């Protein structure tokens, strides 16, 4: 039985016995290589589920749709280990209760989707600990390394060029499972922190704020870069923040559901190399 068949029957089973009221998974998209999120509530529809190497979107954010979890019933979601980390962070930030989430875990290895054992987020703590180790050894992105070698003027020009293309559509915000604020700081107009027009200045400010608000929260799922219509390398900013909290505070977001957010906690011996 293929992994897809296996997960279809698991979804069907969960819905039939009433363990979950909904399964959030991937369905066929508009082209053969595209997948789109589907929301299944009846066992008969489980055959629409698709699971293969093209399933790359992090679906965790859909759990925060207004009222979805308000009735205390459970929902099953297709999640990679990074998706599980997302759930852990959302739980740590009191946005959901992990008891209501059934994980249909999978991992993409090259061209294949592979099954991951476990049904609750806590079952994946071993895998996540492994990923933390790997992340520490992972070299920084090729472009990031080039940027680090530039002078600050060149670096500024690079980002100026990138951000000048931004049209402030906020697709990055809409796609990000971590952007759950009901009122985003850029929508504030008293005071108006960030220029609303899509001049490069306002774009720069927006992208800095977005990256900063994801410091120690981003799981590097890539939803934002994927959603960006003008291909700004948003992942570079996010990765830089991830590396900073990892090296400075040994912090890897989403390790478990009780992990304190990195910017809402501190240690008295935190490093402070740059403070005069």
């Amino acid at each position, binding site marked *: 039985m293929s992994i897809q068949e296996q997960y279809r029957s698991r979804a069907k089973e969960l819905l039939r016995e009433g363990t979950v009221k909904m399964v959030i998974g991937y369905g066929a998209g508009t082209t053969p290589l595209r997948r789109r999120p589907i929301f299944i509530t009846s066992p008969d529809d489980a055959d629409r589920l698709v699971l293969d190497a093209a399933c790359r979107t992090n679906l965790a954010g859909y759990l925060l749709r207004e009222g979805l979890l308000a009735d205390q019933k459970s929902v099953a979601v297709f999640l990679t280990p990074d998706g599980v980390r997302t759930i852990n962070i959302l739980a740590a930030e009191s946005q959901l209760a992990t008891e209501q989430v059934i994980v249909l875990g999978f991992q993409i290895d090259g061209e294949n989707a592979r099954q991951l054992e476990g049904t609750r987020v806590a079952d994946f703590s071993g895998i996540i600990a492994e990923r933390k180790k790997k992340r520490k050894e992972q070299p920084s992105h090729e472009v*990031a390394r080039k*940027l*680090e070698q*530039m002078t*600050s*003027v*060149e*670096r*500024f*020009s*690079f*980002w*100026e060029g990138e951000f000048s293309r931004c049209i402030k559509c906020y697709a990055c915000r809409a796609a990000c499972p971590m952007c759950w604020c009901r009122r985003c*700081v850029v929508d504030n107009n008293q*005071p108006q*922190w*960030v*220029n609303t*027009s899509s*001049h*490069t*200045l*306002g774009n*720069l*400010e927006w992208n*800095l*704020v977005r*990256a*900063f608000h994801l*410091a*120690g929260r981003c799981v590097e799922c890539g939803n934002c870069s994927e959603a960006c219509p003008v291909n700004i390398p948003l992942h570079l*900013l996010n990765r*830089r*923040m991830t590396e*900073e*909290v990892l090296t*400075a*505070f040994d912090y890897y977001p989403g390790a478990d559901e009780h992990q304190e957010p*990195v*910017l*809402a*906690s*501190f*240690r*008295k011996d*935190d*490093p*402070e190399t*740059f*403070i*005069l």
Partner: protein
Amino acid sequence: MSEPFEPKIVAFVCTYCTYAGADLAGTSRLKYPPNVRIVRLPCTGRISPMFILKAFQKGADGVLVSGCHPGDCHFDHGNYHARRRWTAFNALLQFTGVPEERVKFSWISAAEGIKFAELIESITEEIRTAGPFEQYHKLIAETGSAASV
């Protein structure tokens, strides 16, 4: 003939330590450059990165953020939180090409009037040498609003 460049520096300081330190510098008749505009806040924990961006948006050439030494916070741990925030934000600013000399962080206690005066002296000189923050000012000009602090 154009006037010589005078840097505009915005200092976000906490009221219990650095502001009191600045006060001490004043009452001690210590001389420091008048290029700094001080914004007093209850605690460094109150200083959002948005403040720094806002200062640059309004045409500042440099920003100083300063508060109580670790362990001295009036609210016990506001500066510890601030320190983590600055670590992340400072890394982000440098990664996007805001030069190191444009944003400075420091701990200055209420007793350190001399340190305050000397620090303002040194960062003003540093920014005077670096010149106006042209790259940022260009972006401000694009929006059609005149920069002013």
